[in-house]
């Protein structure tokens, strides 16, 4: 028998449900320390530049909220699906479609915008993301095709579609052939909430989504069905819960919220449609959902932490000349450590050989 082994707990440990993410963050920071040292940087200065300095200015905190906004919007939707074992990993594509459809409305009504334009764009963005997520939902419920693979394939298609549009129909007619759309006019731009920062109305959308998803999961019958399907699919079947309905609902919800996130980017901090709308928010949102324990409030905290990794990556790139790719390494490491730490929720780690209870040895 091996020296280190796992022993099942009678029930899930509430301590480690919340302790595991903290342990994972600590292990990630420790690994980051070693990584920076191995790359020849001063690890203390590098970690400071990465995780502390962005938070020392009002502008930095504003940027944190700006980047946490799309992460939260994508992740709360994904988490509802993950609870039901619906693996939408194409949030990046649905986000892109939201930018294409919602942002396309800003271009279609360029110069004629009124108060009605922004609400229309918001609806357009949500509809675009929903439509893109409806394809995997249809293919899964009608043809049994894995939503993991179809939603991811459609992400590549969406990114190519965006590239085609900004090189063609969406391109700024006065833009010297740069692959960019016009700058959105005032009526098509989400209002800034805090002057001096780029925090925009999308942050409130994200908070509303968090509240909405919490109510859905914790307080409605649909939410109950989602949890039962995720935990014990067989029981859900006997209870007569419609799995197909839940697949449709969770994919449309996460697709719509991701589409809203995409609209929020082009109508918010970017202000136009460009070939790269997102630095991978849709993929990072998968990490955010797990780190936040698939719980809406946890997701807000996790989104802020992941937003910090994006901003810290930019800051460390400028300040220390660190490669930008380090952000992805940190994010991947964090998810690895989290998934590893999660074993502590259901199992105890025991060192030493298994105690064999010999019969009659009660003395």
């Amino acid at each position, binding site marked *: 028998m091996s020296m280190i082994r*796992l022993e*099942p707990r009678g029930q899930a440990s509430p301590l480690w449900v919340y302790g595991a993410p903290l342990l994972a963050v600590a292990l990630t920071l420790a690994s980051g320390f070693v990584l920076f040292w191995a790359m020849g940087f001063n690890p203390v200065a590098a970690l400071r530049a990465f995780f502390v300095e962005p938070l020392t200015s009002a502008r930095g905190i504003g940027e944190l909220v700006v980047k946490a906004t799309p992460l939260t919007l994508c992740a709360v939707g994904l988490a509802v699906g993950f609870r039901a074992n619906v*693996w939408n*990993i194409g949030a990046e594509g649905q986000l892109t479609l939201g930018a294409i459809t919602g942002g396309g409305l800003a271009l279609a009504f360029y110069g004629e915008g009124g108060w009605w334009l922004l609400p229309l764009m918001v609806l357009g963005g949500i509809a675009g993301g929903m439509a893109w997520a409806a394809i995997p939902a249809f*293919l899964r419920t*009608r*043809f*049994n*095709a*894995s939503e*993991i*693979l*179809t939603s*991811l*394939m*459609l992400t*590549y*298609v969406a990114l*190519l*579609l965006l*590239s*085609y549009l900004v*090189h*063609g129909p969406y391109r700024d007619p006065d833009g010297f052939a740069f692959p960019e759309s016009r700058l959105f006019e005032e009526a098509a731009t989400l209002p800034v909430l805090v002057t001096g920062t780029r925090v925009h109305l999308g942050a409130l959308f994200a908070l509303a989504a968090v509240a909405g998803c919490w109510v859905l999961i914790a307080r409605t019958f649909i939410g109950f069905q989602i949890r039962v399907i995720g935990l014990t699919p067989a029981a859900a079947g006997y209870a007569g819960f419609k799995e197909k309905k839940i697949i449709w609902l969770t994919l449309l919800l996460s697709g719509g919220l991701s589409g809203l996130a995409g609209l929020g980017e082009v109508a918010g901090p970017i202000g136009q449609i460009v070939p790269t709308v997102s630095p991978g928010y849709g*993929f*990072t949102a*998968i*990490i955010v959902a*797990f780190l936040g324990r698939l719980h809406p409030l946890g997701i807000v905290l996790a989104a802020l932490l992941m937003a910090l990794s994006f901003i810290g990556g930019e800051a460390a790139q400028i300040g220390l000349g660190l*490669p930008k*790719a*380090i*952000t*992805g*390494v*940190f*994010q*991947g*490491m964090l*998810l*690895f450590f989290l*998934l*590893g730490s*999660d*074993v502590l929720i*259901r*199992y105890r780690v025991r060192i030493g050989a298994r105690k064999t209870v010999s019969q009659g040895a009660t003395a």
Partner: protein
Amino acid sequence: MSIEVIGPVVAAMMTAATPLLFAALGELVVEKSGVLNLGVEGMMLGGAVVGFAVTVATGSSTLGFVAGAAAGAVLASLFGLLTLGLLANQVATGLALTLFGVGLSSLVGQGYVGHPIADVPELRIPYLTTLPIIGQPLFGQSLPVYLALAAVPAVHWFLFRTRAGLVLRAVGENHTAAHALGYKVIRIRFLAVLFGGAMSGLAGAYLALDYTPMWAEGMTAGRGWIALALVVFATWKPGRVLAGAWLFGGVTILQLHAQGVGFAVPSQLLSMLPYLATVLVLVLISRDVTRIRLNAPASLGKIFYPD
């Protein structure tokens, strides 16, 4: 299309199919053992960048391929440690492996963008390459193309004609029963995962060393995911993986040729074809629920905890 271009087109299709063949055959063995590793894309990128870096450093593409396979296996061992040792969810861990591989490969590879490398040795059989039509596809390819082809019967033979293959399939069908019979479920699965990682690493190394040949961030462009779809398309049978890989190689080459001759469709829309084709074949094969249920390993993706 005139008759002379058929040879080069078929040859190009075979090279485009090669990375898919390596990665899908590796994943097939992993899935046959009951493990679903969605990290193929990340392991391919790891193999690509390490294979490229080692080739630049040593000047030997053979060493590059070996190093690429080793890098894939190292990344796969992280997956194995988490899912088999620490009982983590396989879907989530596979996604984590891909995200980690994407980040780590662009970090390692930043000094190698645009770096030139030596050619991979080709197996050119004199005179035979000049044969009409079949000359170039059959006798004018580089070594890894033949290696990938040889892996098809080799994997089939291993899985269906050897005792070890039988045990591996038993573990994938019913891990509890296999465990009760005394087979080391976790050890067998870990070895399968390592093999899958090495094959993904080879696939990535082939892309960076021979197919492209260069290193660029995210250069696998979804081929790892297409390989995953191919395993389902093939209903877990090695021979059908070959058919699927050639089909995708064909779609890839056709859209490249269409772009080359200035087909009146924007290049981005043509580039969508391999991804749309993946969705299409996945739908065609998956809609037959009975066939999937009969062929999919019964323990696929389930966590094993020895009692």
